[in-house]
């Protein structure tokens, strides 16, 4: 028995940078540094833990869809300990929405072969959190999503999903699509040895033709949604800021009363 895990990761603009839209209303990637989406580090971490706890051979492939620079995200995941990487890159992918992204990912994991796909709960740029569910729907396999705990044993994935009203214990047979939250366990830092080893690990590059996809199925042209307008939110008008000289609590109550909150 062996277990093939594919971890989907995203290369995103740094949230602490000055994020903008480009003229075509897609995310401007030129003006701000990119990095591996923080929430995807938890997915890589869980794949590594599953591997460490398994008696069977486990192969971890990290997969990303994105421009040339997105290789940085793959290198980070490889330096954490993943075995190999797939980079799907094609000029026609620019502007692809969530529905299209799930199509590319589904075609890629089917071609690569998988028993388990692990994703972060959402990307830190689009923050939709729908790609794992879309991917499960496309692949026709169970979705076991938003897990704060995950384990794999004897062809079954189990996990705990903490919802608003209840915590649920979930169980599904492999193959399956899993997503994990930031509560699943601290992601490890790459070691120096890991960083050196990552340089020698294989990174395959696939384009749309490798996946039997046509340009018009993805990209802005293939998108199912249209952004008509993006406006920078006007800066908040400067608020009142006072130093507490002993009356701060009362002053604040006065403000809240003036706003009809009390």
């Amino acid at each position: 028995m062996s277990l093939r895990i594919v971890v989907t990761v995203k290369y995103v603009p740094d949230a602490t940078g000055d994020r903008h839209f480009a003229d075509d209303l897609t995310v401007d990637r030129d003006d701000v540094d990119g990095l591996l989406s923080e929430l995807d580090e938890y997915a890589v971490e869980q794949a590594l833990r599953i591997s460490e706890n398994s008696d069977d051979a486990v192969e971890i492939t990290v997969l990303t869809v994105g421009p040339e620079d997105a290789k940085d995200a793959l290198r980070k995941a490889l330096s954490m300990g993943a075995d190999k990487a797939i980079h799907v890159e094609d000029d026609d992918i620019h502007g692809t929405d969530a529905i299209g992204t799930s199509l590319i990912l589904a075609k890629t994991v089917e071609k690569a072969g998988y028993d388990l796909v692990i994703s972060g709960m959402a990307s830190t740029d689009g923050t939709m959190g729908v790609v794992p569910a879309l991917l499960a729907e496309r692949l026709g396999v169970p979705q076991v999503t938003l897990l704060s705990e995950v384990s794999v044993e004897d062809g079954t994935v189990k996990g705990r999903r903490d919802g608003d009203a209840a915590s649920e214990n979930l169980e599904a047979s492999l193959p399956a699509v899993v997503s994990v939250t930031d509560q699943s366990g601290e992601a490890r830092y790459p070691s120096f040895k890991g960083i050196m080893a990552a340089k020698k690990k294989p990174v395959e590059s696939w384009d749309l033709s490798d996946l039997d996809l046509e340009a018009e199925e993805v990209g802005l042209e293939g998108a199912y949604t249209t952004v008509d307008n993006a406006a920078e939110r006007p800066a908040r008008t400067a608020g009142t800021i006072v130093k507490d000289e002993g009356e701060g609590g009362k002053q604040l109550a006065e403000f809240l009363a003036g706003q009809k909150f009390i």
Partner: protein
Amino acid sequence: MAEVLVYVDHVDGSVRKPTLELLTLARRIGEPVAVALGNGAADTAATLAEHGAVKVLTHEAAEYADYLVVPKVDALQAAHEAVSPAAVLVPSSAEGKEIAARLALRLGSGIITDAVDLEAGDEGPVATQSVFAASFTTKSRVSKGTPVITVKPNSAAVEPAPAAGAVEALNVTFSDTATGTKVTGRTQRESTGRPDLTEAAIVVSGGRGVNGAENFAIIEALADSLGAAVGASRAAVDAGWYPHSNQVGQTGKSVSPQLYIASGISGAIQHRAGMQTSKTIVAINKDAEAPIFDLVDYGIVGDLFDVVPALTEEIRTRKG
């Protein structure tokens, strides 16, 4: 007038507030037809009718509670076939977004998540979204298929508008994948008696400055004086001072209340991403340079251990 499907979020027949907000927004686009599933589905009808549902499609089956997400997608798909609506609206909870996404894929439709406003447009509903930690506002629409849109709580004021609310049983055939993910156990979260974080009109949050789990009592006391929900920053949650279910921010809950009071929170981008659309923002922090002060309508530079109890006391006095 075109019909609009509204997915009903309810607990044993008790309809949650975000669904009533959806009904208000749905009326801008067409005639709301509500879909209520699972235990107590039919009990939702009176409330839904009061808020504008012309029809309530119901279906009860154990599958909705015993398996994850997919049975609900099957039901919405059946409702879509029965009604041929102009749009499908779903509350923007974690589960709501997953249901909506899978439905959109099946319908060959686009999906928009986390809308904060919705209006009718020449080419279908136009959704307003707040992106990049609320630094941008976008207007988008679904350009293929039946628009599937999830809407964040607190995006509209609930307005009653009595309608027929005729209850009809929905005919649902579950798909092969419906039973793929089994729910083997469920632990209900203990009620604190406070409003739900994402639905609350007022949220009082504590961060690193609260400096200990035991000190969250003063944050809770302020919240209770205002009838508010309690939130926490990631720093406070990671330190184990407050449960993750109360975390406000990029990796926690996104809140958009009428009033947000941040105590001992510096205002890192990750936190701002979760609260920046709050209507009125108040902060209490010792550090005058804290980035949270860039966002506030009213800020107090001071020790939260002095200001918060004094504020709570003053509110109690004023409320008598």
